[in-house]
């Protein structure tokens, strides 16, 4: 069973290679993955040497452009496709070594998945769709329907339980998809671009809904998206993929402030940083000698929300943690820098070494 220190999901050098000749090439090199020779043989590398952990209750957002291998990585971890090489552990158990029965078991109890195209069964009602995972587990019709009804209420679809998917809007259909994936109370929740097929307003609404659910449920989440704003809004950590490689895996703030590669810098260029970063990420060390203003700001506050107050103060403003302890100070200059500054490099130099997270990519 999982101990607090043990990651819920652990990937070690995971590779997924598509192509007819993949097996042959791998055999030749004794199972070692040699990217160059694989590409030569006409294979497609879906996931290239992915290693990371996801902890309990954490939300890891995987992002990248179309074809970068996000879905493939997710499908490896849910074992919908067989991984070519590497190790994956779920709660310390070797996922790739599991037999059919164990796999079904873990899916019935630990995993839930939401799909981009909703993937609802067209000829079953909302209720029947949601009850599917319960019924295949062997739960009696009466109990599974009662439980499914709870899920319908949870995703606020009450009154729609006997309609068919085609009679619902996209957003409502995805609520059904979410309810189905949550019906068995999984620990791990996979979401593959769940909101990409929705239009922007509905998407925003669904993201709020999703946050609300997560605040109640505290699942361990792998969330795939190619929308950077969505990633920043939701993520504890973000993994950015390119051509199967995880280029960087870090907190949203660090990805913006310290992009590991040029590619990621390009990715993050258009982002309104003040809307993303919290005071914590740009504050400077507290020096008792400096005269501070009367107001304080919380270290988790997003800069955008407090900028006006700080800028209208004469003196630097104290940043406090939950207990009210001063953990740093905010200068007007750094806020102006964040809001109107141009380059990352310049900014990065100005940032004191307050950020402890290191680049893992």
């Amino acid at each position: 069973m999982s101990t607090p220190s043990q990651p819920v999901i652990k990937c070690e050098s995971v590779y997924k290679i598509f192509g007819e000749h993949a097996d042959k090439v791998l055999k030749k090199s004794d199972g070692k993955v040699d990217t160059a020779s694989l590409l030569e043989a006409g294979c497609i590398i879906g996931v290239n040497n992915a290693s990371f952990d996801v902890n309990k209750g954490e939300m890891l957002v995987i992002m990248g452009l179309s074809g970068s291998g996000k879905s493939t990585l997710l499908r490896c971890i849910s074992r919908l496709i067989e991984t070519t090489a590497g190790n994956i552990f779920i709660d310390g158990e070797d996922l790739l070594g599991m037999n059919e029965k164990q796999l079904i078991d873990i899916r019935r109890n630990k995993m839930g998945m939401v799909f981009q195209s909703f993937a609802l069964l067209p000829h079953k009602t909302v209720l029947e769709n949601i009850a599917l995972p319960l019924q295949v587990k062997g739960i009696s019709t009466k109990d599974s329907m009662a439980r499914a009804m709870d899920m319908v209420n949870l995703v606020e679809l009450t009154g729609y339980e006997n309609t068919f998917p085609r009679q619902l809007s996209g957003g409502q259909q995805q609520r059904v998809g979410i309810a189905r994936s949550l019906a068995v109370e999984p620990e791990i929740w996979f979401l593959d671009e769940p909101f990409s097929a929705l239009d922007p307003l509905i998407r925003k609404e669904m993201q709020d809904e999703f946050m609300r659910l997560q605040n109640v449920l505290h699942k361990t989440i792998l969330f795939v998206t190619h929308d950077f704003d969505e990633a920043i809004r939701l993520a504890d950590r973000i993994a950015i993929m390119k051509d199967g490689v995880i280029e960087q895996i870090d907190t949203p703030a660090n990805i913006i402030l310290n992009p590991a590669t040029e590619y990621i810098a390009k990715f993050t260029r258009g982002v309104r940083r003040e809307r993303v970063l919290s005071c914590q990420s740009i504050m400077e060390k507290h020096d008792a000698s400096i005269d501070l203003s009367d107001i304080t700001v919380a270290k988790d506050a997003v800069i955008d929300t407090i900028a006006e107050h700080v800028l209208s103060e004469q003196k630097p403003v104290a940043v406090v943690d939950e207990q009210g302890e001063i953990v740093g100070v905010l200068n007007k200059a750094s806020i102006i820098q964040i809001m109107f500054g141009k380059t990352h490099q310049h900014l990065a130099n100005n940032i004191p070494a307050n950020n402890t997270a290191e680049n893992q990519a």
Partner: protein
Amino acid sequence: MQYFTNHKWVQFIALVAIFFVLVMAIDPTSGSNLWRLQENIFWHLPNILNDGLKYLINDFWVVNVYDIELDLTEKSTIIKEFTHSISGAVLFCINLIRELLLGGVKTVVTFTSWDFVSDNEWARIPALPWTAVASGAFLLGHYLGGRKLSMLAGTSIIYIAVFGQWTPAMQTLSFVLVAVPLSVFIGLVMGIFAYKSKVFESILTPLLNVAQSMPHFSYLIPVVVFFGIGDHAGAISTVIFATPPMIRLTILGLKKVSPEVLEAGLMSGCNPRQLMFKVLIPTARHDILIGVNQVIMQCLAMAVIASFIGAKGLGYNLLVSLNMLNIGAALELGVSIVLIAIVLDKLSLAWANKQTNYFANLPFHLHYKYSLAFIGILIATSVLAYSASVFFPDKPNYLYIISKAQGLTTQSFWDTIVDWIITNTYQSVQSFNFFMTASILMPIKAAYLSMPVAATLFLVAGIGYLVGGLRSAIVVTMFIGFIALTPWWDRALITAYMVTFSVVTSVIIGCSVGVLCSRNPRATKVILLVCDTFQTFPSFVYLIPVIMLFGVSDLSVLIAVIVYATIPATRYTVEGLRNVPQPLQEAASMSGLNQIQRLLHVELPLAFPHIMLGINQTVIFSLFMVIIGAFIGTDDLGQLIMQSLSKANGMGQGILLGLCVAFIGLAVDHLIHTWSNQRKKALGIA
């Protein structure tokens, strides 16, 4: 030269020109192989086939079988025993359902003996009063589909009872109620296996192709040889005939399930069995239901044809009436068959669409209200029928069964109409008949018959090459070449002439009607409904009105074929035009095209591949119907198939003739599909 290689139509004209030159050059009187292939080894194929099958049945794998009744051990073969037990099982099921509906002793006999039954009066299944069956139909309709369906099902049964067709109709029903579930089950199982195993699918596909283009009659012959004649043989041939489309549609439906739905099933924790039955099959439901619907239609169509090999029921009576030119009776029987077809079709659809209410926490009597109501009605009607027979012992008991003699009939009415038509239109129909036969049909037939083998094969190969390159050329030449090797080239040409004539006519009518109707959404709906309805009619039924109007002649066969084959042409045209992407239509309108220009330059070209598939169906439908037309009297391949049905050693010949017909269909099918796929790819709508 460049122009020639770049333009297919120029090549095509050249091809046709060479064909005509060849036709002129080859002298029919020379008796050479270029004109007609001389007797060759293939001519013995029917006998070889016969001997092979005889060996299989009579001498292959001999086993000793102990007969309980006669108390002795007999020699038999594995095939005989196998077919014997299948026959027995099927016959038992048919008899069981039949006796539940009509009463009888055969089921009891199966478990006891004839002696037991004759000693004990009570040992029989009593017949249900027709009133009970009709109320049952009302209830079932109501349970499955509400008021409308209830009315349809109930009144259909009442119609059948009141018109005195109870016995044959229930015989047909029992036959269909065995054949349909059997076909659906086998089709589903085979479909699932084919979906799961690539190897099995690649073996099955060509077999299905041939099976689906073999004419109905050719299924009867091997069945008679293996299973004998009778109701069970009819049911078995029906199952063999009706299963291929079910398999097809099951595979198609399963393959169409989106990979994400499949993954959703896996992530829900389905094991392979649950994945198949809880996710894949429900999701593929639409196609599978079309399959079931096709099975029902095929079974009813076969119900008539199977009566050639001893299936009792409406179909048999219909054949007899048609034989005696008793049009009125045939018409009434036809209506009954169509009604049964429609009711079964609608009931099965409603059943599949039925929703369960999971939260209805009903008391016992409400939960089982339909079953309880039926039991109540059963008792009430039985008591009524019984007391009626007690009170009026020597009057016919209308509450129990209405026999043929006592039923209503509109026969005389129809006969009067037919008489009237004959007396009043005899002149004009006759002259029309004469004109058509003498100045159109006969010349075409003669032209077809003057086609030399060599020239025809050249033409076919050339068309194949133009359409699909070398591969297609080889495929179609092999199909047609096979026919040329058999002794039936002339007959095949006659079949080809009839099919060509009817296809051309059907396509002209169907496409024009389709184009006209697609101009208006209301008309589109109406015409699709009409097509749907006409499609439910078993093919044999089409013969009734034409015989009624035109008597027995080549022309009436052709008219029946044309009516029948126009349906797919119309339907596919309407569908093709309707499915032209909206943006393209709008773009066309915005480019200033008027209605007619839009139709000619945008919609028709885009819909054309789909329309071609309709034409393909038209060809297959015509081919089948032309063969059925043998019943009225033609002199093509179909006639030979009919003959081999009654010949002692006809099996080999019958099968090969069936293959010849199938090969004509397959060649056309191959050409049209190849062409249509290319067009679709070129237009980007594949």
